[in-house]
């Protein structure tokens, strides 16, 4: 009986201890994790993974944490273009509404885009090949310098994007009695895996950093959010087709603008514009040791003369029109129409874009 009592007393105190430690850890997590921002004010995740709009990073810190804690999100974006599909999957954490860290993996499938290039490589290397007609097969077993980085089917571009952002000054939401925006500076480090393909496209580098400064402000009397960003970069198609061109890798400042109209506390519509560079504009593609333009005679000889003209690259500014819906602080859904214009050798790359962000 005594033993039984003793046992139950011990169990009870053990239970109490468990309860106490559970409360303790709950308190600790309550101090660290925070979802105190007003719905939608954390923004969504742009394709490079930073908190912002769709293609532009904003000065807001991602997630729902106020300066009292930490919060983060996972995000997935899919853009379906005529010749490409962009998949962007990543994670981002905001700390005390002061700084954020992000990592995103971008996978761009290119469908049949580079099949022509692969065909031409094949043809030119055959035509200019050895005396015995020992043609090297496309993207074949030849030495690395002649590997165009093009797969027989659906060449896929992969890029890792690491991001960091720090809020410098200003208050985007509550300072409605002045025009001072919230300002943040940030940077991305982008590591593109497709070094061979980027050589074919004549990009200068496959890995590079870019920096930006963003100013964001909500104007409640007109239900509007405005963000202006200046990005210091040499990226071609945000780095998906490398950095710089045949003339070198000189960075320049490119402006980006997002305007969002707040329809309801959980819905916003808007437009974005991001200026892009022209490092590769007018450039042909490099086929092993020869330029596609120089390969003209060889192509003529094989009856493919018309191809050299279609292998000229171009790059357009990016535009999008979006609607973002925030059913709860745990989820946002952004649908957009992306107008990306010329991408490498393919024109008119416009299509739908869907982005999901889940906050924890």
């Amino acid at each position, binding site marked *: 009986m005594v033993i039984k009592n003793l046992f139950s007393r011990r169990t009870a105190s053990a239970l109490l201890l468990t309860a106490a430690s559970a409360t303790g850890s709950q308190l600790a997590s309550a101090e660290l994790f925070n979802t*105190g921002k*007003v719905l939608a004010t954390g923004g969504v995740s742009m394709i490079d993974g930073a908190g912002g709009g769709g293609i532009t990073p904003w000065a807001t810190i991602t997630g729902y944490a106020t300066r009292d804690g930490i919060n983060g999100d996972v995000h997935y974006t899919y853009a379906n273009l005529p010749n490409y599909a962009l998949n962007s999957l990543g994670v981002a954490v905001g700390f005390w509404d002061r700084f954020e860290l992000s990592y995103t993996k971008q996978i761009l499938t290119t469908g049949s885009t580079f099949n022509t290039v692969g065909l031409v490589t094949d043809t030119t290397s055959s035509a200019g090949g050895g005396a015995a007609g020992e043609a090297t097969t496309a993207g074949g077993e030849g030495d690395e310098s002649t590997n165009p980085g093009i797969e027989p089917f659906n060449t896929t571009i992969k890029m890792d994007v690491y991001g960091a952002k720090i809020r410098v000054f200003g208050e985007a939401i509550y300072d409605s009695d002045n025009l001072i925006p919230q300002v943040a500076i940030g940077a991305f480090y982008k590591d593109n895996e497709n070094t061979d393909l980027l050589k074919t496209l004549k990009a200068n580098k496959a890995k590079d950093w870019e920096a930006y400064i963003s100013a964001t402000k909500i104007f409640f009397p007109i239900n509007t959010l405005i963000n202006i960003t200046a990005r210091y970069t040499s990226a071609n198609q945000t780095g998906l087709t490398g950095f710089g061109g045949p003339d070198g890798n000189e960075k320049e400042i490119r402006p980006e603008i997002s305007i969002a109209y707040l329809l309801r506390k959980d819905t916003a519509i808007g437009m974005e514009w991001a200026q892009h560079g022209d490092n590769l504009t007018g450039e042909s593609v490099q086929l092993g040791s020869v330029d596609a333009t120089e390969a003209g005679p060889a192509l003529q000889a094989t009856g493919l003369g018309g191809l050299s003209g279609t292998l000229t690259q171009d790059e357009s500014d990016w535009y999008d029109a979006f609607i973002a819906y925030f059913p709860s602080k745990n989820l946002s859904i952004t649908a957009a129409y992306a107008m990306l214009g010329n991408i490498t050798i393919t024109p008119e790359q416009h299509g739908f874009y869907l982005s999901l962000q889940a906050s924890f």
Partner: protein
Amino acid sequence: MKSTLRNIVISGAIALATTNSAFAQTGQTRTLPGLDSDALEQWGGEEGIRNWVESLFYYIMLDNRINHIFREFGNIERQIFLNTQLEQLVLGGDVEYQGASMEAAHADLGITVTQFNAVVEAAYNACERINVTYEACNQLIAALAPYERVIVTK
């Protein structure tokens, strides 16, 4: 020369002080861009504001993150009465606000941004509850937003 400088500094300080006291509820909040000239009418005047303040406190008292603060402050009816005056005033209504400045009223409460945001969420819920449009609601949000700087002290 020195005294001129001192005068400038003093008058500057006085100007700053007056700005601050002007900020303490003597008229419409000067937002940029400005509030709609008919902001208060969009709200249905005094009655609409009163309905909203009652709804606001309904949602606040249901929110476990913040209800204890208001309960400790006491006299919810008095808070509703004063808020009805204040909200009309900041939207441009010709009323007198009889309460303490927002700064004085919240000085010792140690309010966090998280708690302030919780009240903003309650404010939007209250707008929906009384069928004030989102656009009209944002007129009031804009008019009250600058108080964040003096209410949040932690």
